[in-house]
């Protein structure tokens, strides 16, 4: 039987001990990630391999609508955006649905670890996976002679806003998926269709009908904001405040969905 103080104490923040608990929880999230090596390699390697394929087929093509930058320059920030969105949105939301339906979220909820610690650890784990992918993709870019980002600070800002925005959106979307079987197909189909129309695989000229439609979506906005800070594109600022604002608004939508619909218990039965 517990021998600690028996009088009830209130509050959910316990200072340095909690910060240590976050670090510990991140360590276990990472352990869980790497203990499934096929899943880990697929998660981290997919974006890099994807980029390698596109870089190898780009040749010497240029993008007239973006000031004549080389296509290989165009793909690197685009796939970095893809890596962020895949980790923070699609993989995260599928993982959350699976954990919820397996009862793992319920078990964690019943432990003394506060929600904010558990959520922070999930975010930081996702951020680590993102950073590994970004480093790998920058390396692939270098291998093809693409040196960037041109402006590091706005680039890092776009990365951070993208991670927060898509993590919030991923958590929100997880609340809309009813069961683990539906999670993969539903989330991935929507994600890849939106990616295709948002300029990941081929440049979409600004002002085109497709761009005007997809400008409302955070996917194109993150691609554009990373593009603007990664490549010196004539006539654009590296500080893509407007694009990041749209990503942030979608993040807020994710937060609202999460706060209104979040469930710790499995929905089956």
């Amino acid at each position, binding site marked *: 039987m517990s021998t600690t103080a028996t009088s009830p104490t209130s509050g959910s923040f316990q200072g340095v001990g909690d910060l240590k608990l976050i670090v510990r929880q991140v360590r276990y999230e990472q352990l869980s990630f790497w203990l499934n090596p096929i899943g880990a390699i697929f998660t981290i390697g997919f974006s890099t391999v994807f980029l390698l394929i596109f870089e190898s087929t780009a040749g010497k093509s240029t993008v007239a609508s973006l000031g004549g930058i080389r296509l290989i320059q165009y793909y690197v920030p685009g796939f970095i955006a893809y890596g962020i969105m895949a980790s923070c949105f699609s993989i995260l939301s599928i993982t959350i649905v699976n954990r919820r339906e397996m009862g793992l979220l319920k078990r964690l909820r019943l432990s*003394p670890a506060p929600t904010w610690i558990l959520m922070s650890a999930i975010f930081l784990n996702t951020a680590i996976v993102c950073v590994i992918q970004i480093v790998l993709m920058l390396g692939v870019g270098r291998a093809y002679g693409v040196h960037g980002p041109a402006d590091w600070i706005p680039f890092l800002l776009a990365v951070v806003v993208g991670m927060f925005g898509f993590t919030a959106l991923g958590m929100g979307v997880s609340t809309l998926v009813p069961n683990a079987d539906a999670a993969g197909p539903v989330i991935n189909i929507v994600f890849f269709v939106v990616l295709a129309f948002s300029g990941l695989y081929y440049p979409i000229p600004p002002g085109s009908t497709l761009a005007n439609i997809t400008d409302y979506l955070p996917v194109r906005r993150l691609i554009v904001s990373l593009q603007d800070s990664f490549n010196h594109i004539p006539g654009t600022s590296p500080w893509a405040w407007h694009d990041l604002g749209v990503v942030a608004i979608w993040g807020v939508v994710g937060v609202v969905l999460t706060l209104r619909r979040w469930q710790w218990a499995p929905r089956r039965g």
Partner: protein
Amino acid sequence: MPAVSVSHLAKAYGDVVAVKDVTFDVEKGEVFALLGPNGAGKTTTIEILEGFRDRTSGAVQTLGVDPSDRATQRWLRSRIGVVLQELAVEPFYSVRQVLTRNAGYYPSPRPVDEVIELIGLRDKADDRVKMLSGGQQRRLDVGLGIIGNPELLFLDEPTTGLDPSGRRASWDLIRELAASGTTVLLTTHYMDEVEALADKVAVLSKAEIVASGTPTSIGGRDTGTVTIRFNLPEGVSVSDIPGPDPIVEDGIVRISTDQELHVLHELTGWAIEHGYALPGLAVTRVSLEDIYLHLTRTDA
């Protein structure tokens, strides 16, 4: 102060009533069983006591605090242990890793190796969870429930899916925890589990408590009808047998009575007088299962 105090608890999901007017206390150190069919409200009740669900009305105290009070929830959760109805363990961790991780959430956890020993998984300590059998995973689940060294342990159908030896081992573990002062609140479908473990039992049916008491007295079990049974002696006809309305089936005599002392006195006196041995003589009180079925059937 009781470990758990529930007074007129009610919970509804929209128009669906999950529990209504549920009242009971669980004293410290007691093993208390909530018995009832599926959908009776057992899990909802303990989820409210754990602070996992909010109640619609009524008063609830768990270890002296309101479990729905967010201010003391962390304190409360560091003092309770929970074994969920369904397995919920990450498949890629080893047994030791998942226990070590969870131990870190508590202020004064049990040593991980001690828990591994208690749940009988010493040989599997470094195996991945996904490599364990269903019964072994269930035992790990129990281990996660006790790793925090709880004052109060909630066990939601803890032996469902275990083989007979696994069930007995879990019973031994629960007895050991109870003996060391841990209060245990369990839900179960198994009558033998209640008889083996519980100090007190409450039967939930259709969202309400329909009976409560000790396993030996619930539903008037200690005062109701008993059945006296013995093999019909050779050369004796049913009309020769003393006692109220004996029935003979397949050579076995059955007498139902609530005056067992008098009937036994008359019967054994008759047997001794005539030199009959009355082989197979047995007196059986109505079983807990009979009581349970009666309570849940009449309530249907």
